[in-house]
């Protein structure tokens, strides 16, 4: 008879100790991670996607020029398009690629819209922005690749896998918000759209710098290639856009390179800075921060214009006839309208938006 080797007595206790320790660390991690529920809310955008219950035929990827300039609710209301924006602050080209790859784990849209501004950056920029984009991603190989592609010199992969190692120092900054939102967060976006209704007319921007080299970087362009190849492989149409934001400056030389790229691979490319008049953008009324980002009025105009093109050129379903979508979107529209009303109220009361 084979004798079974018994584990020593301490092994069970050590395992129990480890389990208690890990559970405690997990709770502490939830407590210490930033919640992005007030002040800087953009950090909460990435994770909101996983709460979605319906599929999306159009997916936007990019930086603030998508999540502040396109309104999926308008696209639904006007054209019945179900869309989602996977964008976050200073989202770099490779991060957009990995967020696209991440989204394809859950659904396959018919069209992907990529805002090209991020192609101006050819190397990792800022740990804080990296965190806002990546922390919200669900753990997967895609997330690890996104981290690998994005890390600045001082960052470490382990800090992303175990965020407590990054956020442990927040012990002295904890507030009631950290306890309140430990496990459940409020929704802050409308299918990834970050709403602002205030108005700040455009001002003069400083003269753009003269660059030594206008060639868009190979690292960023390499990820545009990967995005295109991934879309081709999945049978998704890739559309390139440049939002009508006036700053940071989008050089003509860059525009020409993107136009040439789009032509070479048969992609659609729209520079809405140049098409602002056709869209009907009025920079005195349609921007909330002097031309950097659209306000609600600007975003709805742009979405209406772009939605028309999408509807005419892609075989997109009109989900307004679908009872399931009707129900889901009724709730989304209510939330959209409530937020708009709340912002208007704040604007009247305080002369500025203070809670959003």
């Amino acid at each position, binding site marked *: 008879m084979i004798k079974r080797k018994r584990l*020593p007595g301490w092994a069970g206790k050590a395992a129990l100790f480890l389990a208690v*320790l890990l559970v405690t660390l997990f709770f502490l991690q939830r407590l*210490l991670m930033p919640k992005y529920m007030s002040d800087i809310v953009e950090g909460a955008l990435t994770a909101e996607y996983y709460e979605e219950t319906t599929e999306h035929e159009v997916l936007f990827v990019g930086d603030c020029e998508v999540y502040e300039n396109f309104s999926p609710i308008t696209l639904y209301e006007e054209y019945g398009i179900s869309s989602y924006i996977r964008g976050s602050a200073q989202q770099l080209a490779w991060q957009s690629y990995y967020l696209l790859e991440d989204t394809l784990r859950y659904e396959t849209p018919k069209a992907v819209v990529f805002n090209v501004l991020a192609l101006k950056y050819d190397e990792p920029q800022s*740990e804080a922005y990296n965190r806002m984009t990546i922390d919200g991603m669900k753990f997967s190989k895609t997330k690890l690749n996104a981290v690998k592609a994005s890390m600045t010199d001082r960052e470490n992969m*382990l*800090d992303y896998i175990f965020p*407590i190692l990054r956020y*442990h*120092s927040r012990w002295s900054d904890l507030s009631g918000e950290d306890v309140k939102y430990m496990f459940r967060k409020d929704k802050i976006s409308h299918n990834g759209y970050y709403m602002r209704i205030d108005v700040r007319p455009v001002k003069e921007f400083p003269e753009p710098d003269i660059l030594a080299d206008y060639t868009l970087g190979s690292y960023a362009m390499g990820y545009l290639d990967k995005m295109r190849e991934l879309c081709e492989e999945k049978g998704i149409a890739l559309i390139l856009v440049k939002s009508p934001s006036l700053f940071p400056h989008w050089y003509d030389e860059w525009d020409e390179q993107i136009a040439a790229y789009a032509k070479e691979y048969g992609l659609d490319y729209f520079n809405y800075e140049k098409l602002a008049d056709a869209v009907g953008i009025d920079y005195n009324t349609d921007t909330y921060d002097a031309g950097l980002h659209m306000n609600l009025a600007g975003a709805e105009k742009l979405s209406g214009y772009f939605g028309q093109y999408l509807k005419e050129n892609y075989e997109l379903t009109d989900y307004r006839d679908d009872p399931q979508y009707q129900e889901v979107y009724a709730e989304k529209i209510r939330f959209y309208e409530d937020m708009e009303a709340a912002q208007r109220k704040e604007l009247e009361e305080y002369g500025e938006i203070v809670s959003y």
Partner: protein
Amino acid sequence: MLFTSYSFIGFIGIVFLLYYTLPRSWQWPLLLAASYVFYFIASPSYLIFIGATTVSAYVVSLRLDALKEEQDAYIKANKGTLTREEKKAYKASVKARQWKWLLLCLLFNLGILAVLKYTNFVIANFNGILSAFGSGGQISFVDLVLPMGISFYTFQTMGYIIDVYRGTSRAEKNLFRLALFVSFFPQLVQGPISRYHDLARSLYERHDFNTKTVSYGLYRILWGYFKKAVVADRILTAVNTIIQDPDTYQGGFVFVGMMFYALELYADFTGGIDITIGIAETMGITVTENFQRPYLSKNIKEYWNRWHITMGTWFTDYIFYPISVCKPMLRLSRFSRARFGDIIGKRVPVYLSSFAVWFTTGIWHGASWNFIVWGLMNFVVIMISQECEPLYQKFHNKFDVKENKWYGFIEIIRTIFLMSSLRMFDCYRDVPLTFRMFGNMFTHFRLRDLNAEAFLGLGLTGADYVLLFVCLILLVSVSLIQEKKGSVRDLIYAAPELCRYAVFFLLILAVVIFGAYGIGFDQSQFIYNQF
């Protein structure tokens, strides 16, 4: 690979697992491989230097042993025929040959250390002299590598070779075992400076997994990380702010910087040694203690018996005593007694040997005048204190305060202030500035400058100060318990099992949550790594 880096923690985790899962006979070869991998990761070129030291020590120690065996065999074979004088003469001739080999080995290894560590210091001084004499010519500095921990492993190896020469240790016949003694990775970068006969046995013998030993080791490691990550690396910000801007931080803040640095250095160095000893302990290896609550010392002499103990004993055994009893020194002593009388005569060898020890201690710490002056200031203070001994005696005869608790407390505080003020030479960029800031501490001291706003300007938040205060109380409490009741770990281990786990739990959480590591902190390497 910093001790506080994730990669190092992963590295020791892997070594630990392999250590207890591989056959026991593989344990010391595994440690050798791990040590060389550790060193290779730091820089492949370092291996050349540590390899040269190991091989030279190996060859010379074997030669020394062979000469000794040859001598013993000769004397045994000619026991009946040799007269006492002949035997003595023969022994002297063997000793002379051994001395030549020893000298060769010392010159070779200390030569490497001297060239790599002090060449640019010599050039800088030479250039200074040239400028002082108005010469426009300057010698260019040379780009030399300074292998990590070279001061530590060179001294440890030279200690071994001298012990073999003296006959207090036998030569290690296995090159690889000797290589492990020289390169044992936990103590490679900041000591302790182990003696061969202290470390060798537990280093090479086979160890079974023992929960008590492993627990003790883990406690020690966690306590070390607590000191380093929570205390030293947190207060570092404030220390750097003060010492890097002497024009702004004057008077009271010089004092604050001095005391903060004393805490930083203590937490940093003892924390590092705790990690070293703890890692070794988890593998059943006993490494010599390097500290015994130095800040509870009542005088500077006691302080040096409690601080960096292995360095102190190394200098005593291999520099102080040999110089004190060498023939020229004995001649000088005789001459001084005859010429100046007993009082001065008997002090000459002690003063000269102590001077040599403290000069070497200073320059061992770093190639700069700051360290040399720091070493010599220690010498001056110790000598003055020694000369004042009769006065102390008179005082104690008159006032019976020696056993008084409060008097003891005052002595401890006095020693802390004294040692902390000497440590200012570590902080400021040069010797004149250090003296100036020392004076400034008294001449510009204004209590009102030490306000909350100014403290918050040092880069620490209110919460940081509260945390540091709690840590300070904890450090002092642990030291007092150790002093009065012995090992704190013995007390923990004797407590109910739940308490043992609770201590682990709290230490891990404290290090993870309150540690000053990662983005937003300037995680520093251990101060003694630089030496």
